[in-house]
């Protein structure tokens, strides 16, 4: 025996799965949606996707370069810094960039995309400590930031997902708006159109539900996400949305045929598969996850009903922020735990 043996605590065999591998799987799962977006919205969709990914990776690299350890010192041995950056590069920024691009409308300007990417990576992720430390989903936070900041996005989203603005020239299907405003389910679009994304306006990656479902199946097969998580979310969301939209009718009517249009409109499916299931910002442990997905679904249905807007991102942000609380209170009991019966304290003698 030579002296090159490694000593460590057990286990001495480990699974081949790495962070980079998981993030690579997520990228692959996002590809069908990205391609569908290019097919439906033309080359501009591709440009936005490219800009977002590059901007995210570049932001992470620049942050890695200037933060911690002295800028001048790192400039001197830039090559080794680059190598160590590449070693720790785990594709999380690529995933963030891709998701951000896919939840933006195609009308977004290039500089808006870059600002959004910098916001996502620098402010939301790196300032909190990088991979695994961010409180909220970077892509979601960036989208909300862009949505309230840039008019090109606001008007588009308002036109397609919210109340149609007066005098707005944007045409296209306003299925979700129709739906949310007056519960009109006999809209111009059929359920099949909604499913395939043909003739539907919306965000680049959110329109083609078929592509999202392909991504979902891939993630489940690769065991990146648990299969029941998106299903639970969508099921609970659809039911609560149907229950709530019953109030559009007088008298109250429960119409289950609204289920499919509800879940196929807007970004619910994309959010359920790719954004709610984000590892970093979702609870650990099964009970916490149940609370998270059911709570998120009901919250989204309520927000949609009352705001008449597409607010999946806001629901995700709110749920992300209460995850630490869920984690604290939803602790599993160990295997074999027997509940200790509380002995009632007898009242002290008078």
């Amino acid at each position, binding site marked *: 025996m030579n002296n*090159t043996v490694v000593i460590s605590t057990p286990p001495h*065999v*480990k*699974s081949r799965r*790495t962070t980079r591998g998981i993030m690579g799987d997520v990228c692959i799962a996002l590809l069908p949606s990205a391609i569908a977006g290019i097919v439906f919205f033309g080359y501009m969709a591709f440009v936005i996707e490219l800009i977002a990914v590059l901007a995210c990776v570049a932001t992470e690299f620049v942050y890695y370069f200037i933060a911690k350890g002295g800028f001048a010192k790192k400039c001197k041995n830039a090559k080794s810094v680059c190598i160590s950056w590449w070693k720790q590069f785990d594709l999380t920024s690529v995933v963030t960039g891709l998701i951000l691009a896919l939840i933006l409308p195609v009308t977004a300007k290039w500089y808006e995309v870059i600002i959004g990417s910098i916001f996502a990576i620098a402010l939301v992720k790196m300032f909190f400590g990088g991979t695994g430390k961010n409180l909220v989903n970077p892509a979601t936070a960036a989208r909300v930031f862009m949505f309230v900041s840039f008019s090109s996005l606001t008007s588009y989203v308002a036109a397609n997902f919210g109340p149609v603005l007066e005098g707005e020239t944007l045409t296209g299907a306003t299925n979700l708006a129709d739906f949310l405003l007056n519960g009109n389910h006999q809209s111009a679009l059929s359920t099949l159109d909604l499913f395939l994304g043909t003739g539907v306006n919306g965000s680049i990656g959110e329109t083609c539900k078929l592509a999202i479902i392909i991504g979902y199946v891939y993630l489940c097969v690769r065991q990146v996400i648990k299969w029941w998580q998106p299903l639970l979310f969508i099921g609970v969301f659809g039911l609560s949305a149907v229950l709530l939209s019953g109030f559009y009718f007088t008298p109250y009517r429960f119409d289950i045929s609204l289920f499919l249009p509800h879940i196929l409109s807007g970004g619910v499916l994309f959010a359920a598969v790719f954004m709610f299931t984000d590892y970093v910002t979702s609870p650990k442990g099964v009970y916490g996850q149940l609370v998270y997905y059911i709570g998120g679904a009901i919250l989204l249905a309520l927000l949609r009903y009352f705001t008449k807007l597409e607010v999946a991102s806001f629901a995700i942000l709110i749920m992300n922020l209460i995850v630490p609380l869920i984690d604290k209170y939803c602790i599993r009991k*160990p*295997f*074999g*735990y027997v509940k200790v019966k509380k002995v009632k304290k007898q009242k002290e003698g008078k």
Partner: protein
Amino acid sequence: MKAVRGKYFFGGVHPHDKKAISSACPLEYMPDPEVAVISTAQSLGKPAQPVVEVGQEVKRGELIARADGFISSDVFSSICGTVEEIRELTGAGGAPEKFIFIKNNGKTDTAFLPPLSSPSAGDIKARIKDAGIVGLGGAGFPTAVKVSPKTPVDTLVLNGAECEPYLTCDHRLMLEKTDEIVRGARYLATALGVANIIIGIEANKPDCIAAFEPYEDIKVVILKKKYPMGGEKQLVYVTTGRKIGLPPKLPADSGVVVENVATAFAVCEAVELGKPLFERVLTVSGGAVTSPKNIWVKVGTKLEDIVNYCGGESMPPKKVIQGGPMTGMALANYDVYTHKTTSGLLLMTPAEAAAEEPTPCLNCGKCADVCPMHLMPMNTAFYANAGDFEAAAKYGNTMSCIECGACEYTCPAKRPLIQAIRKTKAEMRKLMAGGQKK
């Protein structure tokens, strides 16, 4: 009895078992070592006290160190020879142990106990104690303590799961010594006064399952291939449907006693031949060993001799492990002597052994998903890294951990979770001891 399927338990991982390397190698005897270096700390609890002097001649099977206290076991000479010296050395675990050096004189005299015929429960209990039998699964809990439970028991569960990858010593023993194991199990059942004998065997050993099916008084349970199926709590739940409470609860509190198949074999030999426990089956495996083997090894054999007996290294190993790859100990050199509980010696190639640098925790929660004890290892690691061990124990439920290693196996970020858990446990024990003193 006809084999039945066991219950399902949540959690667990599916490492590649790599048992094919050595599962076809029949048991063979390794020649006696030139010098047997026998530790007096062969079981859980206090080490035994030497009863021989330097220069004294001992026979094979002669008592050389007597149990000191309730949880302790007798130690026997594994060869014929002269006691050369008795001194303290650093054991494989890093703690000092007292070793007895016995120089081989080439004789084959034995000093066995008298064989018992149709023994009573009391006889068997006394014999188990006198033969120094300990749990051969790995923990080394004295069997004599196990067979005198404080609460009434009704079931004996034999552990034939061998869920650790690579190890095949129990597999070969179950195949070649089926009848002895069954007889040993009957003796154990007599000692305990129980009628139910259950043996749990993982589904990847169909030959063993078939070997035990003909015995009418033994219930064979097929276990799904999953790690840690052979963990005491998991095994009891899967085979009997009973849950063992958290520590300090023992299986006996649920009416069950768990014994390894190798222990049952040792009991059989102790009762029928009067042979004390001084040798065991050891699996030598891994990609870096020339000829993998399952061998009978005397207690106190130097690992270097074992490697040489198996043809030496075929390539420089990345890791040398005593025990199984999931819970075993990584060694720095071969200057280590076998114990009663040493079940394997693995020489792992760089491709087999994991030695990646940890990356930041992703919070993916996969460690919690695979934890067979339903704990939260990421919380333990998080608070332990910050130095807050009380919070680590509270939010991770660390004190219930069985250290099976499933969490660290599955971690995509390769975090050293077991290290954090052990550190937390040690710190919490210190804290508790400090609290009692005050």
